[in-house]
């Protein structure tokens, strides 16, 4: 009997640490490395950790409460009122007020806001619009509309770095951005004490640092997912959340819709997907993925050079400029597109984005910020700089709008790509948000004290 008790005690002692590992530990510093700017919009990691939106996208694709606890619409979605969560403070102690929200949102979009007017009414903010905004809650859940304390800048040059998120900015030195846990966060304190984000780190160095234990979380571009798996990294990947597309100017040499259509037929999506993005993307000719609409197959993604030549009709437009922003894969994809277009009779010059010249074509990566079709389509069109037409709340209406947009050939969808990151062995409970960004608020470290 005594022997049995002793054995049981030993088993219990051995099982206790195992049970303890299942619970997250507070404390520790998470070391993150990124290639770009963590404050960039959209998708900047620091931005997502420091700032909150009025709403937040749930796992089911619908907008849930965040800084706003409830909302309602009037006048056939022309007027929306969002009531703010009480007791929320910015990281510097400033109480969240409707005036702060109005100032932040106005500063974000200025005259280009989807709404017509924005007012603070007590503890609520009221949006009014000339056109109906049926998906305003989902829109406000997007990364573009996170609330920051107006007038608060940061040493990194970010326009606003004081928010209500789980982490707060503390320092930036030697290329390392340090975020500390916000003890007074309305969502509760995160498990991590600090997050150190080393910025502008090349992908090669990120992976090297991860392999030697100098980093806990690094980026994995879609084109390197295969390689990451081959190297047996712990990869956390999202579903396809970003659309690789060409936006086409309707002015200048490409004001002729036939030439734009010829470009759409000339691009070889499969080569880009299979080789450049190493079969990690989903070829698409539609703006929304098939998971959201189910009619994506109606848009043919196949290349048809004969059709392209036919549509060009012997017209040789002047040298076209294709701008691209992003890493080597994006550059390579742009060069491949230029090569495809050259085969179809176009002269195309690849240039970096931001070049001071007329842009005929732009290869862009557009983030799918919602898992609901209509808000997702709206967000894509807005990100592409296209007008958002009024759409019916039905699959037929959605298809009609998408077909209408695609027939203008001002946007040419190519691929849907996932977003992924690789983590070290001590990182626990990493989840990705619907837009593929890592949610660090719920992350804890294995070896935290």
């Amino acid at each position: 009997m005594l022997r049995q008790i002793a054995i049981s005690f030993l088993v219990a002692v051995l099982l206790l640490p195992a049970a303890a590992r299942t619970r997250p530990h507070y404390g520790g510093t998470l070391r993150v490395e990124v290639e770009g700017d963590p404050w960039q919009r959209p998708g900047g990691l620091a931005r997502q950790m420091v700032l909150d939106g009025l709403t937040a996208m749930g796992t089911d694709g619908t907008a849930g409460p965040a800084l706003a606890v409830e909302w309602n619409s009037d006048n056939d979605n022309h007027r929306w009122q969002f009531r703010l969560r009480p007791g929320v403070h910015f990281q510097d102690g400033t109480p969240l007020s409707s005036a702060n929200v109005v100032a932040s949102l106005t500063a974000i979009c200025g005259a280009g806001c989807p709404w017509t007017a924005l007012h603070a009414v007590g503890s609520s903010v009221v949006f009014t619009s000339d056109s109906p905004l049926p998906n305003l809650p989902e829109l406000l859940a997007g990364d573009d509309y996170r609330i920051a304390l107006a007038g608060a800048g940061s040493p990194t040059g970010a326009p606003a770095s004081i928010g209500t998120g789980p982490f707060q900015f503390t320092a930036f030195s030697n290329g390392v951005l340090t975020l500390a846990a916000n003890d007074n966060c309305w969502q509760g304190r995160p498990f991590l004490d600090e997050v150190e984000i080393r910025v502008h780190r090349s992908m090669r160095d990120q992976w090297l640092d991860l392999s030697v234990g100098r980093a806990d979380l690094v980026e994995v571009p879609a084109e390197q997912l295969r390689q990451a798996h081959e190297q047996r990294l712990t990869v956390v990947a999202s579903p396809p959340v970003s659309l690789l597309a060409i936006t086409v100017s309707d002015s200048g040499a490409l004001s002729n819709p036939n030439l734009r259509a010829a470009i759409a037929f000339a691009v070889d999506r499969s080569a880009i997907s299979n080789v450049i993005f190493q079969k990690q993307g989903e070829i698409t000719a539609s703006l929304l993925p098939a998971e959201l609409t189910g009619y994506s197959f109606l848009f043919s993604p196949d290349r048809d050079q004969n059709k392209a030549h036919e549509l060009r009709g012997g017209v040789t437009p002047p040298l076209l400029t294709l701008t691209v922003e992003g890493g080597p894969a994006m550059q390579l994809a742009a060069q491949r597109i230029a090569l495809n277009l050259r085969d179809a009779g176009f002269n195309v010059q690849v240039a970096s984005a931001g070049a001071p010249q007329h842009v005929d074509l732009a290869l862009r990566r557009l983030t799918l910020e919602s898992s609901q079709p209509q808000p997702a389509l709206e967000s894509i069109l807005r990100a592409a700089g296209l007008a958002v037409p009024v759409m019916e709340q039905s699959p037929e209406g959605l298809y009609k709008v998408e077909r209408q947009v695609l027939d203008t050939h001002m946007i040419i969808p190519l691929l849907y790509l996932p977003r992924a990151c690789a983590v070290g062995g001590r990182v626990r409970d990493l989840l990705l948000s619907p837009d593929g960004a890592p949610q660090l608020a719920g992350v804890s470290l294995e070896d935290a004290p």
Partner: protein
Amino acid sequence: MNLRQKLLLLLSLLVAVIVAAVAWTVLLRIRHVFEQRDQEETALFVSQFQREFQHRSAEVAAAVEHIAAGERARNIAFELAQSGDAAPYLTEAQALAQDAQLDFLEIVGPDGNIVSSAQWPARFGYPEPAATATQSTFLQSEDLPDGTAALGLFAVRAVRRSDPGGAQAVRIVGGKRLDQSFLADLPAAPGMTISLYSDSGPNANTATSPQPATPAFDPARLVSTAGSVTGTARYQPLIDSARKTGQASSGILYLTDRREDSVSATAIPLKSESGSVLAVLTVAISRSGMVEAQQHIRAIAYGVAAGGILLAILASLWIAARVSGPIEQLAQAAEQVAGGNWEARVPERGRDEIGALARSFNHMTGELVAQRDRLVQTERVAAWRELARRLAHELKNPLFPLQLTVENLMRARDLPAAEFDEVFRESTQTLCMEIANLKTIIGRFSDFSRMPKPQLERIDINDALRRVAQFYFPATARASQATADDPSSESKIKCTLGVTSDPLFIDVDPELLHRALSNLVLNAMDAMPDGGTLTLSAQPKGETAELRVADTGEGLTPEECERLFTPYYTTKQHGTGLGLAIVQSVVADHHGDIAVESRVGGGATFVITLPRADETAS
């Protein structure tokens, strides 16, 4: 141009020609030497270039061979054969090219399509024709993503597979650029510029703008180790020739307007495996050294020529002083002699030909003067003799009657008084008449010796003729130009007066002219004892007026014509021989001339030419 000037010109030309000939010969020789040196340097460079080219070819071939034989390439070949999936190797070429320090590298799959490209990663899946090249190394123009093309030295190697039975092999196509760094490695001599012209450039690989067989020359495509090339457009003929013919071409290129900026250039075509000209290597050797040497020599030649011309001037002056001076003095003396100054002499210097000539000249002039003096003396003696003869003749005629009369008077003293008175009266009459005759003769001689100085007046020569005609033929004068018989003359002489309708003015002494014309008229009348026609006429002849007195008498022999104006020469029985001498004297005093035209039996015409009066003068 005198002798001195001719000598100066001749010597200057001679010096200039000699200096020019020497300078031209030296310049030609220098040019030949420099051109030979340029050719040797170019040939040396070409051989060095070929060695460097072969060295580079060997390097490229070794690098590609190393890659093809490497484990990585063999793994790729194996995995491609197993899976057929080329996607994982998209960036392999870049890594391999970086390791092998190659500018171009492509992995070409068994199907001939690019698996991975270092220089144009986006070209995966496109066919690569160079993979089937047969040569170990070759030149190729490689298309680049930015629309340009680059010239490269390429090699192709198949990857060795572990399974020798594989149908198709993976091939590695690698290469290095032939660009400015390649040119910089070439051993160029000082003053030598190495440039490379390649047809690659913007839009060189544009599918929609097919290039012609030989694209137009583009100066921007000519690059050298220093970047841009001076006067690139001047290279066009050479480069075009090399591109079209595939043969090296050479020439002199003037890069600017300055001769110093000219180069001796050679264009060497670089060909692809198929033999087409992909690029042209130009070797330009500066001619500034040669031009500077030529300019230096030319400057020396100019200096020597100037000095030579100066020496020629001095020499010509010296020669002129020694040769042309005496000759000029001789010429001047000869002119003086021709002008009547027979006393002209020239200095006699030296014993050379010029001195002998001077002595001969002086001797000649001395002889001339002596002969003239002797002639004058002879003529003077002859004149005195003639004068004595004439005087004797003239005086003898009256003296004989005087002698007879005096003898008659002496014989008549014995006659009765009455007869004596008769004889005395007749004798005294005879004596008076003969004495008067003697006075007349003496008066004529006296008049000839005392010709008065002309008192010039402006008269119409027609008036002078009318006055003479009126004096001797009044009817003729009244009838003006008509012909009339002389009523006072017993002979049948007709006078014809030919005057001009317009006045014909001359400046003469009217009395002397009248006297001269009277002598001629009287002579004419004497020449026509049986009658005839006397013609008096005047007419302008240029700047002179011509008066003619013509008769239809017996005429004169040529000998008579020659001596006609000699004083005291006469053909008449009782003439003094002074009439025509007086006429000639009058005419000479009026700066005129007199001549006679006559033939035997055809009459004689005396022609007096006198200068016309200047009618513009008052």
